[in-house]
């Protein structure tokens, strides 16, 4: 038994011969919230539109519960897919009231059922008092809720959300995403959530699919994506990591800030890159210095230092809020991660030897 509700295989879609999506594979499991995240123009919205049926793929297949939605011979139109969509601009019908908007998808039900369902949905999103309002009388957050209620009313099998919080201000955004996540989980809904905001993706998604250049780079749990990025793009996009070049030697990886005793299955002398986050780096004033403080940004609980190495490479390092150093101070910077660092060879992650998981300490 396959618990994938939706499966996309080798999808390809071009717009005026520019590929927006190519070789895309994606599965949406029953009951999960999958956050599709990536920089703008990476093809995530196109993916959503392909699943919704607003676009027809040039190649590839989309399956839903074992039935084809789209392949060489079949194309199920959007109205037959039972897939709900919450649009980025909400797409509330401006000429219909809140209640009429929510009732729009219930056209096959009796008036009494419609009335009851609309009331239920408005109750669910907390808009019971506003049934008769017109869209232009609503605030941004209220419109968002109407859009959600309207999409949920016909009980779709899947809900697609296209950057649903991007036009709200920060406070409302945090509040609403909490509400929406709670709602989706309570209703045991399967949902695909598209966003360009990594933090939002980490919050919303049971699983994350990181997209770039038209295909999925990595699909995994938020924790795995954060700790084991599949490639350099994922590491940079999700973690704001510094990329530190190094050479594979017998004891580990030799870098500008010293030897990292972490073995990789590569021949000696291979050039690799290590993802070191700002919290993986420490510095002090002892011994031989290898960098100079460029700037300090005070962030309350901690200080973010920018340090330029002798080679010119600039790394970011955190220090507690009480550790203050002047700009221009020469320092000795070192790795202090306490976990294995992600290592990339030609941009792709290379796993370390299993038996050498020593604490990574100062050389």
């Amino acid at each position, binding site marked *: 038994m396959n618990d994938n509700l939706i499966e996309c295989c080798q999808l390809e879609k071009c717009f005026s011969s520019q590929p927006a999506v190519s070789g895309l594979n994606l599965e949406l499991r029953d009951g999960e919230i999958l956050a599709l995240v990536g920089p703008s123009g990476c093809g995530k919205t196109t993916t959503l539109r392909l699943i919704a049926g607003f676009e027809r793929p040039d190649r590839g297949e989309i399956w839903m519960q074992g039935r084809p939605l789209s392949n060489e011979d079949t194309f199920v139109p959007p109205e037959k897919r039972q897939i709900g969509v919450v649009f980025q601009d909400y*797409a509330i019908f*401006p*000429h219909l009231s809140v209640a009429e908007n929510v009732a729009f*998808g219930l056209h096959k039900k009796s008036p009494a059922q419609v009335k009851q369902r609309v009331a239920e949905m408005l109750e669910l999103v907390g808009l019971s008092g506003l049934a008769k309002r017109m*869209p232009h009388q609503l605030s941004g957050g209220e419109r968002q809720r109407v859009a959600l209620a309207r999409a949920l009313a*016909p009980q779709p099998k899947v809900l697609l959300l296209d950057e649903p919080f991007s036009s709200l201000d920060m406070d409302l955004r945090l509040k609403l995403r909490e509400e929406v996540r709670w709602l989706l989980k309570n209703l045991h809904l399967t949902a695909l959530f598209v966003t360009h905001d990594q933090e939002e993706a980490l919050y919303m998604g049971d699983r994350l699919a990181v997209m770039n250049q038209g295909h999925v780079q990595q699909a995994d749990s938020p924790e795995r994506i954060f700790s084991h990025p599949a490639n350099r793009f994922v590491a940079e996009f999700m973690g704001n990591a510094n990329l530190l070049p190094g050479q594979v030697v017998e004891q580990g990886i030799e870098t500008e800030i010293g030897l990292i005793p972490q073995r990789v299955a590569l021949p000696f002398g291979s050039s690799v890159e290590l993802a070191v986050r700002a919290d993986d780096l420490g510095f002090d004033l002892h011994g031989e210095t290898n960098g100079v403080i460029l700037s300090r940004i005070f962030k309350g609980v901690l200080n973010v230092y920018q340090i330029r190495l002798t080679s010119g490479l600039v790394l970011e390092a955190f220090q507690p809020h009480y550790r203050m150093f002047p700009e221009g101070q020469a320092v000795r910077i070192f790795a202090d991660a306490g976990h294995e660092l992600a290592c990339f060879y030609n941009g792709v992650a290379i796993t370390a030897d299993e038996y050498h998981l020593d604490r990574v300490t100062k050389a």
Partner: protein
Amino acid sequence: MPAALVALAMTVPLFYLVIRAAGASPAAWSWLLRLQTLQIIGQSIGLALAVMLSAVIIGLPTAWLVTRTNLPGKTLWAALLPLPLVIPSYVSAYLFVSLFAPRGLLQNLLEGWLGIERLPSIYGFWGAWLVLTLMTYPYVFLAVRAGLIRTDRSLEEAARSLGYSAWKTFWKVTLSQLRPALAASSLLVGLYVLRDFGAVSILRFTTFTRAIYLQYQSSIDRSAAALLSLVLVLITIGFLVGEQRIRRSSAEQPYTAVHPAPPVDLGHWRVAAIVIIIGVLLGALILPAGVLFYWLVRGLAAGEQLSGWLRPLTGSLTASGLAAVITVIAALPASLLSVRRPGFFSQLIEKWSYLGYAVPGVVIALSLVFLGANYLPLMYQTLFMLLLAYGILFLPQAVGNLQAVLRQVQPSLEEAAASLGHSPLRVFQRITLPLVMPGASAAAALVFLTAMKELPATLLLAPTGFSTLATQVWGAVSEAYFARAALPALILILVSSISILLINHHTSDEGSAQRT
């Protein structure tokens, strides 16, 4: 103060009309209630409604075809379809009459070939309906097209994801979105028909404007014409208020298309669509142009004298040129006041500007005739009266344009100049005037061009012996000298094209009814 004077000058004629109507003799009142008068009202409104309906029937599908489908040559059709707007209604009527009239072009042709001696008459309701429909469908076309371009694809996609088929989505969502545009533009069409004088007169269908003109010409008791005018103004105001309401309520929906909708594949229907569009263009553009060309060539071949149209041309240039300068100068204080010191009085001026759109030229002319004949005998039958009429008719347009220009001049510029020690007058001279000058000249050009096309007021108020291109066309057509009308008609079409180009350049103005 100057603003108040201008406002006063504009309102006096209408007030006088009211007074005159109130003092109408019992005979005039009973005339108003006669069956014949009711018939005029019925015919006017009937024609307006019929033209509104047919303009929608032509304008809506053509706009959809050139905006939302994969029709070949969309840009070309989209550019050609609104073009009938540039033909003044009486010119179009002249061209159709010269084609279909008993002694017209088609009759001659058919008689020669087939021996057909009688064509269905172009005169009356059907002729007026046909000509006015072909003149006014561009209003609907442009409004619907703008509405379609504005609608984001997500609205239609939302309906699809909620289980509506493409066809049902069109009816429930797309068309509903267009309802304000359709309603406002068809009211505009109705307003055009009610105000129109030239076409209905040439096609001999008695609506208000023609009845007022005939009444004015024939009877001694002109109060009846005044009464009739008031009834007409009330109806047009009703249309205008309706149009403004819709415009305002639809402005509350701040929708702009981020993603335009993808084109609909017409498949084999493409051929039918192109046939429909070419059919419309044939009637509205190609046929009139061909007929005009025919008369032009025939007139030249028959040795139509150039000197014959030189006098009307200078007449047009003089009257319109003076009107442009006077109107813009008069509009400046009112616009300044309403932009810089918004308040009750400036709102009044603004309201009046809208009202100005509702009052047909023939009514303004008539009220000035009364006023001139009774109180200003020295001015009556001089160019001054005509210029006054132009001023009243085109002031709203000039004010609208100037307001738009003035809004772009930041008050801080004037304040900066004042803080540097300049008196208000000098600030106006050194800062405001140079900045609004380009806009003001555009406004003047627009008044100039619009005044050249004006027919009814010119007809009623021009001094004896003074003729313009518009009256030249009118005169030649009334006497069935079709070839003589061709050249002035061509010049008028060119003039009108330029003015529409200018309007499109200055869409920043209130965007209300365009005077034609």
